[in-house]
């Protein structure tokens, strides 16, 4: 679905991406983990076309494109909800922006928000709900976006362990149902191993330190095997610092 070659970007002389290659097959989920400040968010912004790259090419379904603008959904690291709309309207924003009548998708949005535990808060403005609730709303908005490729920047970072697990499953279920392709940035190794069918651990400059393939189809096998992988990933992160 997506092929990225030699993507480069530096900010004011400080290189962030030094020639990244990336392939996303349709329907997969690539999970990216890496030290804070290594350039994960920058990569997603480059892909989405919010920031111009210094070099490199992107091919989407064989055709070269300048960026994926209009071809991908993005969940940024901060929620970016509009403070003057309630959660439901915020979640329906991509529908409205597409020019569709939001009422036609309202049922779907209500159901999704309900499953995300926001059923009682549909009419609350973002300023009156908790950080985790805002994040869940932003995730719902991203999923209602309707693009086959979805870029997620730490989508569950503000959620407790249990809600997080629930939502991981929810997102993967929808991915399967709706046939989405995911690029999932997370700093939680367990999450990466749980949701990715490939997991890359990155180092500074977005150099790929470790490529892990979690065993077997979801739901995941015993925790023991995962723990070992997690340990390996952790060592890679640790090494990338030294």
């Amino acid at each position: 679905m997506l092929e990225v070659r030699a993507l480069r970007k530096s900010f004011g002389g400080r290189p962030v991406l030094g020639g990244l290659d990336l392939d996303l097959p349709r329907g997969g989920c690539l999970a990216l983990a890496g030290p804070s400040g290594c350039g994960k968010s920058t990569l997603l912004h480059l892909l989405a076309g919010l920031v111009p790259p210094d070099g490199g090419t992107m091919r989407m379904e064989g055709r070269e494109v300048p960026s994926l603008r209009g071809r991908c959904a993005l969940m940024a690291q901060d929620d970016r909800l509009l403070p003057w709309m309630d959660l439901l309207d915020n979640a329906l924003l991509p529908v409205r922006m597409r020019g569709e009548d939001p009422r036609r998708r309202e049922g779907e949005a209500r159901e999704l928000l309900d499953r995300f535990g926001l059923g009682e808060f549909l009419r609350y403005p973002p300023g009156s709900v908790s950080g985790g609730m805002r994040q869940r709303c932003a995730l719902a908005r991203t999923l209602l976006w309707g693009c086959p490729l979805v870029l997620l920047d730490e989508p569950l970072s503000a959620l407790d362990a249990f809600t997080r697990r629930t939502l991981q499953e929810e997102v993967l279920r929808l991915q399967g149902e709706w046939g989405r392709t995911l690029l999932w940035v997370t700093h939680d190794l367990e999450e990466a191993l749980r949701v990715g069918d490939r997991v890359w651990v990155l180092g500074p400059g977005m150099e790929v330190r470790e490529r892990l393939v979690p065993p077997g189809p979801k739901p995941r096998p015993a925790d023991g095997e995962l723990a070992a992988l997690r340990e390996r990933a952790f060592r890679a992160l640790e090494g990338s610092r030294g």
Partner: protein
Amino acid sequence: MARLRDRALGLGLFLLLLALWEGVCRGLDLPPYLLPSPGRVARVLLSQAPELLAHGAVTLGEMVLGILLGLGAALLVGGGLFALPQAERAVLPLLVATQAAPVFALAPLLVVWFGFGMGPKVALTALVVFFPVALAFLQGLKHRDRGREDLLRLMGGGRIARFRAFHLPGALPPLMGGLKTGVCVAPIGAVLGEWCGASRGLGFLMLQANARLATDRVFAALAVLVVLGTGLYGAVDRLERRLVWWTRPEGRARWLERRERKGRK
């Protein structure tokens, strides 16, 4: 309780300012034809109330119409300059010109085009209101939150949809600020308009009183004008509280309450 105290404090300050004015008049021994004392003005206000009110109503009508017109034009021009930023350099001198043009450069044109009816007054009011509103609106549109804008752009959709959902609400606080300036200067517009041809209105009254050297009547008309101006300001302030509800917790709470009350019906 707290609100009551606030009001009392406000009233106290107001009285203090009046006392200061009275003091200036007496202390500096200013003759009443230069600056009448508040007491003198109050006497005129009382004795000539019906006339002042009648003329005030005329001027109020002109101001309200002018404000609406100016606001509409400001929304259009502010939005237009935002959509076409290259035009700013070209259009700006024109706008500055309309502001700097002394009435006597505009008055003949306005009279020839609009005659002596309400037209020129409304046009001049609209002109003075327009400017601060348009600039504040433009400024608000420019200093938008880039992160949210980027995301909305990714969602695609027309510029108009984006403008309505994002840019417009985001620019509401400065817009309302500009509108406050606008309604405060609206009296100037109406009065100037009345100077270039009128037979009614507070501006006309002031001119008449001035020719009769009745400075206290000038100030009485001015007082009525000020009450009208502050009244309009208060109205805009209320509107702002209602429209820009999301910045303060109380505002959000009230909004939620209202929504729920509506939902229940």
